[in-house]
C-alpha cells in the first residue's frame, strides 16, 4: 500500500484529486488544506508521493517543496506540483527545486493517473 499526501487549499479541488487517486486500490490518500497542515503530517507518516498546489496562502507549494528537498527525511519523496497553465515560471522553478513532474489545472483524472502510475510504477 502506498500513501499519497495531497496539499491543496481548495476543498473541492482536493476532493477531485483524491477521487482521481481512488481508482488505484494500492493508494491511500491523506489530505492537507495548506502548507502548515502538510508540515504537521510529514513526521507522522511515511509518504510515497506528495502532490502539492503552488498557489496557497501561508506557505506556497514552492516553499514547501524547497523544505522537503532540503530535509534528509523527506528529500527522496517524489513531489508532483500542480500549477496554473499560466505560470510557466512557477512550474520551471518547481522542477529546478526538484519536483519530479507537474500538472496544470484544469486537468482530467486520467492525466493525474498517468503521472502517478508512472512515478509509483503501478
Amino acid at each position, binding site marked *: 500500500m502506498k*500513501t499519497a499526501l495531497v496539499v491543496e*487549499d*481548495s*476543498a*473541492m*479541488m482536493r*476532493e*477531485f484529486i483524491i477521487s482521481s487517486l481512488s481508482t488505484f486500490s494500492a493508494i*491511500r490518500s*491523506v*489530505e*492537507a*488544506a495548506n*502548507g*502548515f*497542515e502538510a*508540515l*504537521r*503530517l510529514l*513526521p*507522522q*507518516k*511515511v509518504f510515497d508521493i506528495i502532490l502539492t498546489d*503552488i*498557489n*496557497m*496562502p*501561508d*506557505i*506556497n507549494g*514552492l*516553499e*514547501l*517543496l*524547497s*523544505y522537503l528537498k*532540503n*530535509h*534528509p*527525511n523527506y528529500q527522496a519523496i517524489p513531489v508532483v506540483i500542480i500549477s*496554473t497553465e*499560466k*505560470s510557466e*515560471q*512557477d512550474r520551471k*522553478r518547481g522542477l*529546478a*527545486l526538484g519536483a519530479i513532474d507537474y500538472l496544470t*489545472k*484544469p*486537468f*482530467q483524472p486520467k492525466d493525474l493517473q498517468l503521472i502517478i502510475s508512472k512515478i509509483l510504477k503501478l
Partner: protein
Amino acid sequence: MERESSKRDFISEAEEILEELTGDIQSLETSIQHNNVRPDLINKIFRQFHSMKGISGMLGFQKISGFTHELENMLDNLRLGKIAVSQKVVDVLFQSMDLMHGMIAELIDEQTDRIDPSPVLKKVNELIHEDQLPAQQVTFPELDLDEQTLRSLTEYEEHRLQENVNRRAQLYNVRLVLDDATFDHELREISDLLNQHGEVISTLPSFESAAGPGKMVFRLIYGTNLTAENILRKVERSDVTIGNIRKEISKTASQETEEEQEPERALDTSLKSLSRTVRVDIQKLDEVINVIGELVITRAMVANVSRELMAAEGHSRLGVTLSRVAVDLEKKLNELQRNVIETRLVPVGQIYHKLGRMIRKLSRETNKQVDLRFSGEDTELDKIMIEELSDPLMHIIRNAIDHGIENADERRKAGKPERGTIRLSAFQRGNNVVIQVHDDGRGIQIKKVQEQARKRGLLPPDRVPDEKECIEILFSPGFSSSDEVTELSGRGVGLDVVKKNISGLKGFISVQTQEGRGTMFEITLPITLAIIQALIVRVGQNKYAIPMSSISETVQIDRNDIRTVDRKEVYGLRDRTIPLIRISEAFHLPEKVRSETPYLVIVKVGEHSAGLVVDELTGQQEIVIKSMGEKLKNIPGIAGATEIGESKPVLVIDAESMVEEATHGRIRAG
C-alpha cells in the same frame, strides 16, 4: 448520479467562494478609496478566481470556467503589477460577481442562454491589453539571497520583492524558531503583526537540525520601513532573530548534517486531515431532525405507557422504572437535539456581504451616498432562515435607500451629514434573534401614507388614522403596486410580501419611525424552525398545539366574565381589553369549549394580543411541524400538523394569522 452530486458540491462551494469574494472586493474598493491597497488581498482574490476556474474546468462547466479564466488572467496581471489597481477594476469585478451568480443560477436550472458575459469580458480584455504598465526587470543583484531561496519564490512573491526593492523598503530575513505543537498559530500571529507594519513577502520553512527536536524553523522575507530593533520590539519574542538581507548570508540546508529521528510514537497517531470540518447537505440535517422528532414522539409514548402502568397497578416497580427510563430518554434527546440544531446555525454576517453589494449598487443607481454599518455579524441563526431572510432584508434596505435616505442637498438643508447611514444590527433576545435595519433618512411620512391609502381605497375618506394604523397600512396588500412608480410605492416593493415572508419564518416585523430622523424596521425570528416548544391545549375532544414563542401568558377565567363588544367577544385582562378567538369558529368545527372555567391562551404578535379560548391546557412539549401537503397548505390559522405521541396528529395553530383575524377580521374573508 455522480455528476449530479459533483454539480451540487460545486454549486455550494462556488456560492461560498462568491460570498467571500464579494466581501474581499468590497474591502478592495474601500482600500482603493483610502489609498492603502494590500497586495495580499489582490492575491487572495486572484486565488479565489483561480479555484473557481480550476474546479469548473475540471467538472466541464465550460461557461463558468471560460469566464473565470479571463478574470484570472486579469487578476494575475493585477497582482504582478502589470496593470494598475483602479475603481474601473473594482467595477468590473462587481459586475463579474453578478454574472457569476447568474451563471450559477443557470447551472441550477440547466440553462445556458440567460447570461451573456461578453460585455463584461470585453471590459476585462480592455483592462488586460490597454492598461499594461511597463514590464519591470526582475533581478536582485543588491540582495543577498541564496539561489535556493530565490527559487522558492513564486512569480507573485518575486514581484512583491521587486516592489519592495523599488520603494526602497528595508528588507529583512526574520528567522523564527517555533514549537512543533503551535507553530501554525504562532506564525500566523507573527505574520499578522508584521503585516501591519510592512509586508511578509515569503514564508520559508527551513530544516535546521541545530534547532533541536520539537522545533520548527521559519525564515520570512520581510519588507518594511521599521528598523530591526523596532521589529524586535514589536514582536516581543525571544525566539526571533533578524538579519538585513543585504548582509545576511543565509545558510543552505544542505550544509546540515544528520538530524535526530522523529519520535516513533508520532508515526501512528493520525492520518486524518487536520481541517476538522465536514460539509453536510442541509437536507441530511433535516432528516436527522425529523428522526429526532419521531424519537420525541416515541419518548412521549413511553411516558404514556409508564403513566398508564402506574395508574393500573399502583406504583409498580416496572412502572416506576419505565418512567425513569422516559425521563432519561428525554434528557438525552434534548442534548442530541441541541447539538444537531447547533450544527445548522450560521452567523448572520453571511448575508451582510450580499446586502453590502446591493447597497453599493443601489446607492450608485439612485445617486445617493450611503454608508453601511454592521454589527452583530456573529449572531447565529438557522441556515435555512438566513437564506429566506435575505429577500425581505433587501426589500427593506431598498425602501430605505429609495424613500428613506434623502439626497445630499436635502440632507444638508436638514442639518444632516451628506452621506446617509444604514445600520444593520443583529442580536439575540431570549430564544429569538432580532435583526434591525435603521436608516437616518426622512422617516415615514404619515400624511403621504394617508393620502396614498385613500387613493387606493384602503381607508374610508372620513377616517383619520393614527400613526400606528398608518404603519399597519404600509404592510397591507395593495398599498404598493408595481404598475405605478410614485414617490411612496417605488418599484413595487411590497411590504406585505416582506411581512408574509417573515411570518412564514414564524417571526414578526415592527417599525418605529420619526419624521425627519429616520426609520427602524425590527425583525424578530426564532433561532430555528426545526423543533419548537409548543403548548398542547384541548377544545372539546380535539387537541391543538400552539407555539410557545407566540404565547405571552395563560389565565383561567370564568366564562361569565366574557363580554361582547361590537358583536365580538372580549375579555378584560387587567387594564386591557383582549379580543377572543374561538378555535371552533375559526375552523368551523363542531367541537366547542364546554368548560365553565375555560383557559385563555394569550398570544402576542408584535403590538397585538388576542386570547384563544380553550377547555384545558394539557401540557408543554417539543414538536416538529410537518406540512400538510399541497391541498391544505396556506390555510389561515394553521401552521401545519404534528404528532404528540397519541393516536392521531394534532393541528399546530398559527398564532400570527389568528391574531390578525381577531384584530382586523381580515382572514375570514378568504
